[in-house]
């Protein structure tokens, strides 16, 4: 409160400055920096025009900046920076505005790496989702037996990801535009990357066959191949039976008299796998 009286006189040039922008914004912008203003297409002139109707928020944005400017400077003397105004560093609104003007007007490479408010909000939501999801798993769900199973972890990963993607899609449908489409694709891809990475780590930690053998070797220090074979032969047989039973359970394989053969569903999956193997050009191993 005590600083108010001392700052009060500064509001006078500020008011003058606002008035100058309100009345002559477009003209001043053109006069101030001929080379730069040639590239200024939209932002400053439009602000000036809007301000003349008393509705421009930018006039208010620029106003406080003049509080920090030397008294000898007038609006006309203000120097342009990349098509914007020279503004104090501590005026964040103005700095953001200046960057936007620069990016809109100059064709420098990588100069348009800024996000709009809506885009920033989308990224905050996606980042928050990932952080909260991971924290919930770390603090609560990994201690629950249900989430140790494949179905449990799949539900835990896919249900919230699907909800987020559906919301992003609904947002796209609400305001269909290329910008919304890009936001939807970003949300979908970011969720997909996180979900897949999580699932891969989970599957890896569940223990591949090779990793179990390696783990046993590290534990015992040394072993002959024959000793390892003896040790893991039961596990190998169990794994094989489990796979066959799980394929039977999923309805991909059926037992016809004494032979196992694919169902229609199994045939479709095997067809996709064959196609993948053919495209990638690798031979499957046993």
């Amino acid at each position: 409160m005590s600083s108010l009286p001392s700052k009060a006189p500064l509001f006078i040039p500020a008011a003058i400055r606002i008035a100058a922008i309100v009345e002559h914004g477009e003209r001043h912008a053109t006069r101030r920096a001929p080379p730069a203003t040639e590239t200024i297409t939209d932002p400053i002139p439009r602000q000036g025009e809007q301000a003349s109707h008393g509705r421009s928020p930018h006039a208010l944005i620029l106003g406080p900046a003049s509080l920090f400017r030397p008294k000898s400077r007038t609006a006309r003397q203000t120097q342009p920076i990349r098509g914007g105004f020279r503004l104090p560093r501590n005026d964040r609104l103005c700095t953001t505005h200046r960057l936007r003007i620069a990016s809109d007007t100059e064709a420098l490479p990588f100069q348009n790496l800024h996000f709009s408010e809506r885009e920033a909000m989308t990224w905050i939501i996606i980042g928050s989702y990932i952080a909260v999801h991971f924290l919930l798993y770390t603090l609560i769900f990994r201690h629950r037996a249900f989430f140790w199973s494949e179905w449990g972890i799949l539900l835990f990963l896919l249900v919230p990801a699907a909800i987020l993607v559906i919301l992003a899609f609904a947002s796209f449908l609400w305001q269909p535009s290329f910008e919304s489409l890009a936001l939807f694709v970003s949300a979908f891809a970011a969720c997909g990357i996180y979900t897949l990475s999580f699932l891969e780590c989970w599957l890896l930690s569940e223990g591949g066959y090779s990793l179990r053998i390696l783990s046993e070797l590290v534990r015992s220090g040394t072993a002959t191949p024959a000793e390892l074979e003896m040790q893991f032969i039961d596990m190998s047989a169990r794994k094989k039976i489990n796979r066959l039973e799980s394929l039977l359970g999923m309805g991909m394989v059926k037992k016809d008299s004494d032979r196992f053969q694919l169902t229609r569903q199994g045939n479709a999956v095997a067809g996709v796998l064959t196609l993948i193997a053919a495209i990638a050009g690798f031979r499957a191993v046993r």
Partner: protein
Amino acid sequence: MGWLGFALAAFVLSVFAQGVILRVTKLRNGMIAFVLAGLPLGLALMAVLLPAYPANPAWAGILLYAFLCELWMFVFSSTFSSVSANLLLHLRSQPMRRDEVDRLYDNREMIRRRINWLSYIQAVIETGGRLMPTDRGRQLTALFDALRAFFGHR
């Protein structure tokens, strides 16, 4: 919409290039082949999208490419290494009896293949007929154990 086309085209090219690398060279590791193909294409995609498009669509294209690449690696590595997937592929060619399945997946042979793989990636070393873990193998096991502990696997 160009960013979407660029991202999809880059992914298709990566998969195609992986197939070419695996067929033309002696390389047999599909993952390495895909990284060799996908990494330069990903960098090229960034070089195309970032200067030419606003941030939002440019990053959407890059993220989409990254997601598709990860999905592809997940799918083909599962196909490549999964016993279930392999069994499906064999059953597609012909129905099999139980003893034929057993012969196909001979237990000892399955273990031997894993040991050979561990030797190939230098996680174990054979000295005087005995297998010993290398430092790399110990690091892998430590990572594996940490993941098991985190995810609560028994």
